[in-house]
């Protein structure tokens, strides 16, 4: 089939989605939707409808990014724009079935948004606070299309960029990407066009293209979402990149923790190959590209280029020193380019609409848009894509909605274990590569974990060092031993065993590990420690000198007790205490036996009368 014919077929298929003959229910079925119980809900709903002989069709979509509102379903009635129902429960779903599906009525505030203009008090999707400031490029199709349906992708300008690129020379494609100003979205922010150019110019065949889908940063999930919700955009991006650098073989290195992404990728590759969008002589251009999926095996360090290649080659994922750079000696010793998922997903629109269009977003040195995974102690968790240069304040408060329980937001942690904590005082900071680095953090892949006043910064540092300590490959001494040493000191501090001088020691070791380590894992591992010391030195001092954790996190430094005045003896704490450490008669104030208490905090959370005191 010619490309134009394909497009025509796709348009028709999409038309059936936007104006269906019978009601269409599109369920968000990316991992977040499933984790929130979407599958069970859908099944129950289907049974319910069948029982009532209500005609409807169902399909799956990916993730719209409003994960906090999962499970979600968009219901499209014939002749009407879709309506998005959120935070669904079986009861809610049943009611919506009756109200909307049968009677076309939106009752109360059950609907989140209309996928069109606002209607009867239900806001337009694009006006939602979480959506408003966004500019979705890499995420353009996520949650919109059925990721298992190639036609849906094609109907949204899918493979148009590739089609155009194949009419250009590889050098012209590189020039277009250079114009876009796109920088690697995996963390380091190296200009993509330049990276390609190095590889294109390198001697040696064959050349390889690798898609780094080993999203290991805890707190980041944009790659998973793209792979699950719009796999073809990554494949198209890979085809573009491979064409530009002159590679005919590509690998997608994807973490095993993303089974759904792996499944979707596998299907997408088969679809694309079947339709001559991959494989030999793609779209009649003479260009060939064969893709293989390599499943990661659980090693954070494999996000590092040289370790990733070692892993594909079947070796321990241990990085090596550069140079030689992968562009010259990469996979199997051959010239190799490694791009991450988000970078690749940005490429099709850049090629379709032109590099200048993309460069129109963002700041001077950081062009375009960036996805962020918003998580932690923020109301609207999820995935967003915004123009570079937006402030942290806008992200955390306008888009994220601030604290869900009215706590004071203390900081945001960006860049995962390699990043740092940025205190709320600096939230006016426009987000781009340079400015995040200037405050000691990094852009990283775009994880943003919001921390509130109940977060202990020493504990956060300890947490990250535990992570990097466990993920250190062990090859180089500063990282292997330095992360352990720092973790040990931090553990001591959290356990009330901190010693005077420990803060300075952490700074000293941190500096040496940062400068002395072989790869970026070790090189950035001290960041969480160093930035928290920089901005929250007093918390460290309180832990060491005063033996206090004011955030109430470090168990050794806190005690739980019951305020006899406010306790009304409801027994909720006592029945929920896993240690039976709480005693007291019904309707009389209770007491916590501190010897038995394991400081799990269940009582504190459970007490509806704030009678449990944490000190």
């Amino acid at each position, binding site marked *: 089939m010619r490309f134009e014919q394909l497009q025509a077929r796709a348009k028709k298929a999409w038309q059936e989605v936007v104006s269906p003959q019978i009601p269409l229910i599109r369920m968000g079925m990316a*991992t*977040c939707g*499933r*984790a*929130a*119980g979407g599958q069970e809900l859908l099944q129950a709903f289907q049974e319910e409808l069948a029982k009532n002989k209500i005609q409807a069709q169902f399909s799956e979509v990916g993730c719209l990014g409003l*994960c*906090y509102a*999962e499970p979600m379903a968009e219901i499209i009635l014939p002749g009407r724009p879709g309506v998005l129902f959120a935070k669904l429960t079986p009861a809610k779903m049943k009611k919506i079935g009756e109200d909307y599906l049968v009677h076309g009525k939106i009752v109360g505030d059950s609907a989140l948004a209309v996928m069109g203009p606002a209607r009867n008090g239900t806001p337009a999707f694009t006006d939602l606070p979480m959506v408003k400031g966004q500019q979705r490029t890499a995420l353009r199709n996520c949650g919109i299309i059925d990721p298992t349906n190639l036609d849906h992708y094609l109907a949204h300008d899918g493979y148009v960029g590739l089609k155009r690129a194949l009419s250009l020379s590889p050098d012209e494609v590189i020039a277009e990407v250079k114009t876009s100003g796109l920088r690697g979205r995996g963390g380091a922010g190296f200009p993509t066009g330049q990276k390609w150019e190095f590889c294109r110019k390198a001697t040696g065949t064959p050349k390889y293209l690798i898609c780094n889908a080993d*999203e*290991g940063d*805890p*707190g*980041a*999930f944009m*790659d998973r*979402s793209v792979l699950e919700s719009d796999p073809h955009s990554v494949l198209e991006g890979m085809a573009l990149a491979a064409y530009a650098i002159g590679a005919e073989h590509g690998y997608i290195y994807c973490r*095993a*923790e*993303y*089974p759904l992404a792996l499944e979707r990728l596998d299907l997408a590759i088969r679809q694309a190959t079947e339709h001559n969008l991959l494989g030999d002589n793609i779209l009649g251009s003479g260009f060939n590209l064969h893709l293989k999926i*390599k*499943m*990661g*095996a*659980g*090693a954070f360090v494999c996000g590092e280029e040289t370790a990733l290649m070692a*892993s*594909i*080659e*079947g*070796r*321990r*994922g*241990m990085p090596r020193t550069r140079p030689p750079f992968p562009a010259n000696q990469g996979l*199997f010793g051959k010239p190799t380019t490694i791009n991450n998922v988000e970078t690749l997903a940005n490429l099709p629109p850049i090629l379709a609409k032109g590099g200048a269009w993309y460069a129109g977003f963002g700041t001077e040195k950081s062009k375009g848009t960036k996805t962020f*995974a*918003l*998580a*932690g*102690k923020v109301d609207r*968790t*999820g*995935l967003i894509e915004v123009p570079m240069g937006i402030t942290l304040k806008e992200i955390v408060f306008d888009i994220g909605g601030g604290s869900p329980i009215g706590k004071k937001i203390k900081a945001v*942690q960006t860049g995962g274990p390699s990043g740092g904590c940025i205190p709320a005082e600096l939230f006016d900071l426009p987000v781009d590569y340079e400015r995040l680095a200037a405050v000691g953090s990094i852009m990283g892949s775009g*994880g943003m*974990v919001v*921390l509130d006043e109940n*977060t202990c910064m020493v504990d*956060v540092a300890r*947490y*990250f060092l535990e*992570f990097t300590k466990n*993920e250190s490959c062990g090859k180089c001494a500063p990282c292997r031993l330095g992360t352990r040493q720092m973790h040990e000191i931090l553990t001591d501090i959290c356990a009330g065993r901190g010693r005077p001088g420990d803060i300075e020691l952490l700074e000293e070791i941190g500096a040496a590990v940062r400068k002395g380590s072989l790869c970026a894992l070790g090189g950035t591992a001290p960041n969480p420690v160093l930035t928290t010391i920089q901005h929250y030195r007093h918390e460290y001092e309180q832990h060491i000198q005063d033996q206090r954790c004011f955030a109430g996190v470090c168990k050794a430094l806190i005690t739980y007790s019951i305020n006899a005045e406010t306790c009304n003896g409801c027994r909720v704490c006592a029945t*929920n205490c*896993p240690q039976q450490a709480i005693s007291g008669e019904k309707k009389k104030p209770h007491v916590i036996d501190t010897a038995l208490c*394991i400081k*799990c*905090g*269940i009582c504190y959370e459970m007490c509806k009368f704030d009678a449990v005191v944490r000190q």
Partner: protein
Amino acid sequence: MSKKAKKDPFASRGRKARPSQMRPKVDPSLRALLEKYPAERSNLIPLLQVVQDQHGWLTEDSMAAIAEYLHVPSSIVYGVATFYAQFYMTPQGKHRVKVCQGTACHVRGSQAIMDQLSSKLGIPPGGTTSDLLFSLERVACFGSCALAPVMVLDGKVHGRVTIKKAEKIVEGVK
């Protein structure tokens, strides 16, 4: 370290056949599984994955069989298998409980969930109950941070978990 390494290193001195004479016992189904992949070093990790998929964990014999099939020294197969968190060198429980320890989960209290499950099942993270019913594991991040804290039971992701919910989920399969 595997169980064997803990035994008295003197135990086998001089008595065992030299390793050049030792050969792994390869059952035909394993052999058939291996032969689906070309005998290339780059297939080492995929082979470990499929073998573990089939058997639940990696036995010494199966690792040795992979080494032999790929013409790679067995020490290297072991080195690779132990490097990656995904591979198990001991039998795993019928049900796999994984608690996410990602940042978002951590700040939302996943440690308490882990502690509770650990004491409930009577095994430390990374352990397996003696009846081989449950294995408990920490996982760095499932990428479902928006629904933190998250746990996974036998491949099914559960979001917004609380201590109570976690207990219920585990009890559900008992």
